[in-house]
């Protein structure tokens, strides 16, 4: 296994977003990536850490280190896992992982630049990119997802009022959606209506975080505008790439 790429999926994709997860796997395959997934992956423990259980997160990091160090690169579609391995490990838990850890948006962009992924088919859709807090403000990854999106032909990109450092949280972060899901959903509704001010003809919100996908979907159910409520989709980068690969 040494030398391989590990695709670390994260709890939300594994358990709740199965179709979206399949898209990720299929993009990996389409690019001919030699990768593995773990049968008994388990949690990265960022949620456990955020709940205040630092000791448990530390123990889990010790345990995971031996598993993860066997790989050359870890790619994850989950910004929480990404931040856990890249930032919380060294800064809070005193652990430096050997392998490089990438978010799927960074990895897919590399594949595109290397010519291994060639999105050609026009995707005629009006979309908005949502910066997940864990990926943007907390990890500083703003450019790669945008560059990736710019390489997909045909898209009509709607720019919301606040982006990047100033982006508005969807409400799914900080465990709010586990503590008080109905409030988290209301946050998402307010974000779309009052902060982002999404237009009536927006077709999809593209984002790089499974937690945001779930929570924004929950928020869409309460939108005042019926058309949006019915039609607005929330998808990940892999789904967008898949459309452009012509599947």
């Amino acid at each position: 296994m040494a030398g391989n790429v590990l695709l670390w999926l994260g709890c939300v994709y594994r358990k709740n977003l199965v179709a979206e997860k399949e898209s990720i796997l299929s993009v990996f395959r389409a690019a001919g990536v030699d990768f593995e997934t773990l049968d008994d992956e388990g949690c990265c423990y960022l949620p456990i850490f955020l709940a205040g259980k630092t000791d448990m997160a530390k123990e889990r990091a010790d345990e995971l280190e031996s598993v993860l160090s066997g790989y050359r690169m870890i790619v994850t579609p989950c910004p929480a896992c990404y931040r856990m391995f890249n930032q919380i490990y060294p800064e809070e838990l005193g652990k430096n992982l050997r392998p490089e850890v990438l978010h799927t948006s960074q990895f897919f962009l590399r594949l595109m630049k290397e010519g291994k992924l060639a999105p050609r088919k026009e995707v005629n859709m009006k979309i908005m990119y949502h910066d997940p807090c864990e990926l943007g403000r907390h990890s500083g990854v703003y450019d790669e997802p945008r560059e990736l999106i710019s390489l997909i032909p045909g898209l009509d990109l709607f720019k919301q009022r606040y982006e990047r450092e100033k982006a508005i949280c969807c409400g799914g972060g900080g465990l709010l959606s586990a503590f008080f899901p109905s409030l988290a959903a209301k946050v998402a509704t307010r974000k779309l209506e009052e902060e982002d001010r999404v237009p009536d003809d927006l077709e999809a919100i593209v984002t790089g975080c499974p937690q945001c996908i779930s929570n924004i979907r929950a928020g869409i159910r309460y939108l005042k505008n019926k058309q949006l409520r019915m039609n607005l989709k929330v998808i990940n980068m892999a789904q967008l790439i898949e459309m452009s690969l012509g599947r």
Partner: protein
Amino acid sequence: MVEKSEMEKIYMDYLRQLSKASADRFLRLALSRAVESYRRNTETALRLFPYTVELAEKLREIKEYSLLHVDELISQARDMIEDLKGHFYLAKTPDDAMDYIGDLVKPGDIVVKSKSLTSEELHMNPRLEEMGCEVYETDLGEFLIQQLKSKPMHILSPAIHVPREKAAEVISKAVGKELPPDIPLLVGEVRKLLRGKFFEAKVGISGANVIAAETGSVFIIENEGNARLVTGLPEKHIVIAGIEKLVPSLLDAMIAVEVTSRYANYKAPAYVSMISCPSKTGDIEKQTTYGAHGPKEYHVILLDNGRKEMIKDPIYRQALYCLRCGGCMYNCTIYPLVAGNFGYIYMGGIGVPLTRFLLGGLERAAPIAYTCTMCGRCVEHCPMKIDVPKIVQKIREEAAKAGIMPERLRENLGEITGVKI
């Protein structure tokens, strides 16, 4: 520490309160207007005075220095205030402060107050009333809150949730006649009512936005002009402020005044009062006599109440840089849905450490901490760049250690992650 079962009740009551607030259409409307207007005004103020951003960076350094040298600054301020014939008192606890104030008031005294969140730490109003005083909040927002017997919903605009119709009802009751919901008229009526009280009052109590240690001078920023009257008309003026308000010099204090006002969405506030001692005159034979047109007695009470403990911790210390500009709340994920209900008395993300240490304790701070999405947007907007998510994380750690993590969070997390917590 509270029992687990009691804690669960606190969590549930808190969540119910949030649910109720987020379903209140009037509140939502009032908030979204306030959010937009705050952002617009602040943007304009910062565009006109772009160097404010750099000043804020400088102020952060001043604040850090001041906290690390707080004992020095306290004694400097004490010496100067006493030298100028004012009185100084360092209160360790709210009770100490109230005892001190208790000696300065008599039953039957009218007490006028200008806005002070710190006075909430003392539970000042009910306690003054117990002592037989008649207490008037004179900031219009605070006045409404006092009449409504509710709690402030924003640190700068306490009555942010009260629409004009409600205000008309409240003010009608206070002045004893039926008034229409006409804002200028309502403001005029309150002015009339309070005008008399300012003159009758024996004691005026104010807070402070910043205090210059070198001269012991207290700065108060305001727009209504009520603080000028509170601090100028009664015979006694009492200042109550946290020790974190101290900065070394007058110039440092001016920087704090400028940054605070800009981030509180003003190009320039209507008034800044600088007060150093009781009023005095030496116009007859150069004989200094105290109590000319202003107060005869001047007292500065600085409150510790857990602040020194916060200073010791580099993460919690940051919370004491807070200028109470209120900007974070207008840029918060949760606040615009529920206002000050996302809080205890101190509110918003910055309210988490303030609640934990100054007013409410861990059991009141934990519910706020667990509803913060830790998105970090407030940090981007905070002039002091206070790392609220990091502070919130630390409070959650404390809560988890104390065994008071919310049960429903524990269960739901278990389900999502498959981990038994």
